[in-house]
């Protein structure tokens, strides 16, 4: 019972982290139609920038400044790169972000080297907040939850209560009309891209110390962000939130409980074959849920695309 609670908290942390990436991506994707493959790279940049800043003036300034730099970099990429490619269509845009992801990883290695960075949790937060049946919940996790929820509330406020938010929402559904109304759509695109990447940057800053700061960190996160927004439904912030939490919890619980395929198969009345070593399906029999935890989201996505192409909360078909 206590373990369930602990897993709920852990899944929440993973899910919220994912949400900070997918929130920006779903805005970018649904407004500009860009499958931004470099989104996780901006997350990585956030961690690296924050690490370098934290060496000089401490973690908290890093938390403040690094996302700003990442956001500026993102806006710059939109202004001087994507905008040019936009006229050629969506596939070239996608290739552009693909190449960008490659390049960012290489540049990071060029500047910071190939080793893991010793970017760590600030001293103030380096204690155990509380324990549940021997499982300690580090204070830093509470801090991560706090930051992500504040960002979600902030985003929701901006999108629903401010003028800019209204325009963005309108642009999500009717990009041409908004342009016809005299709004500067390219500027909005640049802003959304900047903010989206800055959010990814925040995620990088706070995830770097716990999940590691190394050149492969973008690749590890990679396509799972896309999976999240497709499951949630393109353009839906709530969808992104729900899908992020869903993925966070599914993967956490799948890893925590060793559910074996043989138990399931036995459960539905299929007997374990006698001669396992000669059985061509022997590997299927020995699968356990932690082994496949991280591919469960992909399975979920394929199923959703087959049976509900618009995603959980999406209004239009992808």
């Amino acid at each position: 019972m206590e373990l369930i609670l602990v897993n709920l908290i852990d899944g929440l942390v993973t899910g919220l982290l994912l949400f900070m990436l997918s929130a920006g991506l779903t805005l970018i994707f649904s407004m500009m139609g860009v499958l931004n493959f470099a989104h996780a790279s901006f997350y990585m940049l956030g961690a690296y920038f924050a690490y370098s800043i934290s060496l000089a003036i401490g973690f908290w300034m890093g938390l403040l400044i690094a996302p700003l730099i990442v956001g500026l970099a993102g806006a710059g990429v939109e202004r001087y790169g994507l905008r040019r490619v936009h006229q050629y269509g969506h596939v070239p845009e996608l290739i552009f972000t693909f190449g960008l992801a490659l390049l960012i990883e290489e540049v990071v290695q060029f500047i910071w080297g190939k080793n893991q960075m010793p970017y760590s949790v600030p001293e103030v937060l380096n204690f155990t907040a509380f324990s549940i049946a021997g499982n300690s919940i580090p204070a830093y996790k509470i801090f991560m939850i706090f930051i992500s929820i504040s960002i979600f509330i902030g985003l929701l406020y901006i999108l629903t209560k401010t003028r800019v938010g209204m325009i963005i929402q309108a642009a999500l559904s009717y990009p041409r009309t908004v342009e016809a109304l005299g709004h500067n759509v390219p500027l909005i695109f640049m802003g959304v891209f900047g903010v989206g990447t800055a959010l990814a940057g925040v995620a990088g800053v706070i995830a770097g110390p716990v999940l590691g700061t190394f050149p492969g960190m973008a690749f590890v996160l990679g396509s799972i962000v896309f999976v999240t927004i497709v499951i949630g439904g393109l353009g839906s912030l709530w969808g992104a939130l729900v899908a992020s939490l869903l993925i966070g919890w599914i993967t956490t619980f799948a890893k925590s409980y060793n559910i074996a395929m043989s138990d399931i198969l036995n459960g539905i009345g299929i007997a374990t074959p006698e001669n396992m070593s000669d059985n061509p399906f022997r590997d299927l029999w020995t699968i356990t849920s932690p082994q496949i935890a991280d591919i469960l989201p992909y399975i979920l996505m394929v199923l959703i695309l087959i049976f509900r192409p618009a995603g959980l909360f999406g209004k239009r078909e992808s």
Partner: protein
Amino acid sequence: MTDEMTKDPKQQITTDPSKPSERMRAGSMTITLGPWIIAGIALMLMPFIFTSNSALTIMNQMWITVIFALAYNMLLGQGGMLSFGHAVYMGLGGFFCMHIMNYVEDYGVAFPLPLLPLFGGLFGMGFAMLIGSFSTSGAGTRFAMISLGVGELIAACSVIIVAFFGGEEGISGDRTYGLPFFGVEFLKQIEVYYLISFWLMLSAALMYLFSRTPVGRMANAVRDNPERAQFLGYSARWVRFYSFCASGFFCGIAGGLFAISYEILTEENLNAASSGVILLVTFLGGVGFFFGPIIGAIAFTLLQTVLSLQTELWSIYAGALFLATVMFFPGGLAGLLMMHVPAFKLGKMSGLVVPYFKTLIPAAIGVLGICALIEMTFHFRHGATGDNEMTLFWTTFDSHSVLPWIIAIAVAAIGIGIAKMTAPEMKEAWDEANTAGGTS
């Protein structure tokens, strides 16, 4: 996401074979046969120019990538379908062939090796039929994301299902146990080279012809406008399905050739990185033209295999090259070449030669200067202490002294500077070369 490829109005009509029917009826296939004969002869002659085994290995790799990229372009370029998991079809074909190879070895079955890729193709097609049955009902994001999901799934299975995939070590075999094929046992690289070349010619020709069949033509129509195609009596879904299966077939052939060439198949043949690479390769070459992927595959293989021998930083250059291509030449390398067709037809190519020399050579030198700066920075930062010597462009110098830096900066600045100065002249010449009439 829409399934249109590019919105560039200047983009040429892509894979259009439509010579006036009159000419076709006269039976003058020579115009279209020309490049094929040249390519065939070139393939035959290559081993006489490059005799070393490593050159043969690299060329084998190239031709396999060519088949794979052409098959991929049947979807991307011809059918407007963006796949993120296409390595799976090539990989599965390869794994299947490897199992056949091992079966032949273990049970001494009389089986001629040259036929093996055919079975890889059939297996690839079979799997494409399975996946295509539900993924081809839409193009765009839906198709792309299903392909991504299936790709990740199979790649993950490759380490879990050891019986078929052999885990991370993969499965390996020995190609020489097959029936000798007219006395050839495929012990030597050169024999494998000709086998691969044969399959390359055959598959390329078949893929080319496929694009000229009714279903191949309708693939283009569905790419351009799926709804309109529906109102012409064609189900967009079935057209996509047939393209998908055909693509899977040729991917499987590439996989079979991979099995023969390397005698080992591993998880890397299935994973997302391989799927991403083939997308980049195809795009680099140019999706709009049938021969685009051929150029892309050759260029990328050289980049990956040859440039990486010269510098650790090869992937920085590769990344920069992709960005530059997509930003300035969305038609890819093939598009760049085909841009010159109008000027060529007008007989004005000669007017371009001098301006090209004036701009592109300094630009190239400038770029090399920038590369030199990057290499020197890298050496300065990451080289061993005390090991100040570095060799670049056949010159050895001290990366910690000032002079080489000044030279590199000067070369870069002057090169780019001259290129910038002469660029308007080139543009003018370009406009002139593309205008009918007048004298050049």
